[in-house]
């Protein structure tokens, strides 16, 4: 297979991952809807995944891609449990606003 990667320095992938990660952080801080916050966490995980795949490609090491596989496993489990918790919160407070949970302070 022809190499498509030639001509793309790894710095570009680093900056792309930084941009996606910071957009995820911004979303977690910016929004109040808990579902959107979950989605931004997924976005951050994907930024890290992209960086790991890029490094594993540039170093020629398979370990990075196996780790991305395990990160996907953890993300899927996290989403299943997180959305179940969210459903339970909605059943009790009738909203997905995270400010409705400020009684969890202590």
């Amino acid at each position: 297979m022809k190499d498509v990667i030639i001509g793309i320095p790894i710095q570009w992938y680093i900056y792309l991952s930084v941009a996606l990660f910071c957009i995820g952080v911004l979303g977690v801080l910016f929004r109040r809807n808990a579902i959107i916050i979950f989605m931004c966490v997924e976005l951050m995980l994907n930024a890290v995944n992209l960086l790991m795949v890029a490094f594993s490609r540039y170093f020629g090491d398979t370990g990075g891609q196996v780790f991305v596989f395990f990160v996907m496993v953890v993300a899927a489990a996290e989403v299943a449990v997180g959305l179940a918790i969210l459903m339970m919160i909605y059943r009790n407070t009738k909203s997905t606003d995270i400010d409705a949970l400020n009684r969890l302070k202590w």
Partner: protein
Amino acid sequence: MLLSQYLFFFLSFVAVLSALMVILDKNPVHSVLYLVITFFAIAAHYLILNAQFLAVVHIIVYAGAIMVLFLYVIMMLNLNKDIEPHKKNIPKIAAVISAGVLMMAFVALLKDAEVSMLPAARNSNIGLIDSLGKVLFREYMLPFEISSILFLSAMVGAVLLSKKEIN
């Protein structure tokens, strides 16, 4: 400029723009759809990086399973309207400033990193399913099995949490 560089810039533009739309759009359903676009752009990046197996798994797991789960929850909770109460301005400004400071810190740290001259490795077949499968089932056998236990416990937890309480 090479064709691959154009491809990289186009995909990065799509990914970053739709990621921004995820957090700027008021409608949660639109946010989910924009996130699906971001995931497809990232999957195309995986293809550029010659990681075909991960690209396919990424589309199946994220666009196929996780995002459908999000959509179902949004529709079950009937949140597909703009009901998010408006935040005050000060937390929004603080959020933008802290995310911007984080990004500046990352860029300043990585600006002088000594990876810029790193040539692409000659072995480009590491992302194919046969080499990945050999590594996964030889060196990473134990984590692979443990992740199945993680899935089982997550499944039990999700069922337990979403069950209605019977008083």
